[in-house]
């Protein structure tokens, strides 16, 4: 079938909302070629993305590098934090606005090897710092469900692109919630694996002891398939976990009868929008209906976790981002009068406000005389939070709760007060402190904006997370819903 046939077929709706497995079946059966598929999604990007701004670069699709991989011919986009040789890799920053990656990240190498077809690089909060995707040098991203709302951040472009079905899946990274929160806000499924599960090689560093690459896709089934291709030991990442990767797809159909689901009672408090709480409780009821048992667990001190994270991550960032000095990479200010002026003006002009704020906080927290009061104290808090999880997992197999306290907020709502914006991350950050795997699964809507159910597992228990999420998705159809986009004519399954 030719590309134009693909576009004209009312089946576009079926095609663009299809699972990756279904798309693969169609390719294998010869219903369309990988070039047709790439063209169909590229056409959607062309039509719809101007209203979203979810991508910062388009990449001309090439023939799949493999003919036998599990993702042969499946189009996707990378969060623009992953290096792919020869493509512009900006990290959402003026600092790298024209920087072309000279090598491949391991994630890119693995996805290429499995035959996936890169269509572009997605917009993001600058250097992955943000919860609204309003901190990008390339402009804010709109939420496909409501363009006056933020898509979440920092992987906001990836979540918006998958939400609008511009691609079947996208890569993301999660340092304090940056996969799960935008996935929740955009009504898509996202998985942040255990720290060390996916290689950080070629993934631009923000806070190295937290950063973890993962997947944003329509369903848990798709996440399982893609994660299996991305994950695994990499000797080029010194914190990569040297342990085998299970077949995440193989266990999807297992029953969750008897599964013990921990419900953190402190997370269902005044801080949680009651309507979000209702949606999440309804999702937990579905898990019960599928045979799971629920048990109340204690996860206190989310406020301490938040305080610790917003010292530790900036501290690591202040060190990681020192490499952007106007000498070795990217941007340099005009006419520097001496080396000092070159450094200071390059960094002042090349970084946006949030990045500068975090570098300054981190520099302060690490400076002489304050190290013990801030950095060391925060590392102790990391232990406290991790111990809470450890105790909770003595009583349960997975933890279920909200991803965010509210649905997607309006654009501009928090830009005046960074500390308030940070509260958005209160349910996601503790998971990063402990390095645990977490998922966001679409669980309904509040006033037309999506709500996510968060599932948290033990270290390296991703297989169980995708299994639980998949079993949930067998009972509901939230993940099948598509936003009603003005520019979109190929949508017969829209949410009103």
């Amino acid at each position, binding site marked *: 079938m030719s590309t134009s046939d693909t576009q004209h077929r009312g089946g576009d709706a079926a095609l663009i909302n299809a699972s990756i497995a279904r798309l693969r079946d169609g390719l294998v059966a010869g219903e369309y070629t990988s070039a047709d598929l790439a063209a169909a999604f590229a056409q959607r990007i062309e039509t719809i993305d101007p209203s979203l701004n979810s991508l910062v670069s388009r990449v001309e699709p090439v023939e799949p590098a493999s003919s036998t991989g599990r993702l042969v011919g499946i189009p996707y986009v990378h969060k623009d934090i992953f290096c792919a040789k020869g493509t512009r890799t900006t990290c959402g920053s003026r600092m790298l606005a024209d920087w072309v990656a000279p090598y491949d990240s391991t994630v890119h190498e693995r996805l290429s090897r499995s035959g996936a077809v890169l269509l572009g690089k997605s917009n993001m909060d600058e250097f992955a710092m943000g919860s609204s995707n309003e901190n990008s040098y390339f402009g804010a991203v709109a939420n496909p469900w409501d363009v006056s709302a933020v898509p979440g951040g920092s992987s906001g472009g990836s979540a918006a692109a998958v939400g609008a079905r511009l691609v079947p899946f996208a890569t993301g990274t999660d340092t304090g919630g940056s996969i799960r929160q935008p996935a929740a806000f955009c009504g898509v499924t996202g998985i942040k694996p255990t720290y060390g599960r996916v290689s950080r090689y070629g993934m631009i560093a923000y806070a190295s002891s937290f950063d973890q690459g993962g997947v944003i896709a329509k369903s848990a089934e798709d996440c399982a398939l893609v994660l299996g291709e991305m994950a695994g030991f990499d000797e080029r990442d010194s914190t990569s976990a040297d342990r085998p990767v299970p077949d995440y797809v193989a266990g999807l159909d297992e029953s969750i009868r008897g599964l013990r689901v921990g419900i953190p009672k402190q997370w269902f408090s005044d801080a949680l929008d009651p309507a979000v709480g209702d949606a999440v409780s309804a999702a937990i009821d579905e898990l019960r209906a599928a045979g799971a048992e629920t048990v109340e667990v204690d996860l206190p001190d989310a406020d301490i976790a*938040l305080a610790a994270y917003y010292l530790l991550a900036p501290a690591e960032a202040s060190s990681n981002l020192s490499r952007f000095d106007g000498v070795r990479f990217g941007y340099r200010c005009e006419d520097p009068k001496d080396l000092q002026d070159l450094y200071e003006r390059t960094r002042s002009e090349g970084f946006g406000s949030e990045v500068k704020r975090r570098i*300054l906080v981190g520099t302060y927290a690490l400076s002489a005389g304050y190290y013990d009061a801030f950095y060391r104290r925060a590392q102790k808090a990391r232990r406290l939070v991790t111990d809470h999880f450890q105790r909770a997992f003595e009583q349960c197999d997975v933890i279920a709760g909200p991803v965010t306290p509210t649905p997607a907020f309006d654009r501009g709502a928090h830009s005046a007060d960074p500390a308030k914006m940070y509260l958005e991350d209160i349910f996601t950050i503790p998971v990063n402190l402990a390095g645990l795997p977490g998922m966001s699964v679409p669980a309904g809507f509040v006033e037309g904006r999506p709500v996510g159910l968060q599932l948290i597992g033990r270290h390296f228990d991703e297989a169980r997370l995708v299994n639980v999420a998949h079993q949930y998705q067998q009972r509901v159809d939230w993940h099948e819903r598509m936003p009603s986009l003005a520019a979109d004519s190929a949508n017969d399954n829209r949410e009103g």
Partner: protein
Amino acid sequence: MSLTNDQLQTVAHLARIAVEPEWTEALRSDINGILDQARRLDDPRLNDLEPMAHPLDQVQRLRPDSVTETDQRETLMDGAPAHEQGLFLVPKVIE
């Protein structure tokens, strides 16, 4: 613990970030807002806990000391704002 203007200038110098005068006050107030939250870390339960640097309490993996990468000097330098003959160019440092 709150940051004074002088401290902010010192930190900005350490971080090699020029802070425009018109941003100083707002920035100081933002940073103080963040440091205010850090008061939660005064919690006495933290006193005796072992600081945690890595989520899996992993030890640093070692590898044999052998050359694994090929020389890509020119390719890697292509992303630099100014370079010549394999050297990065910067303003004159020594008169």
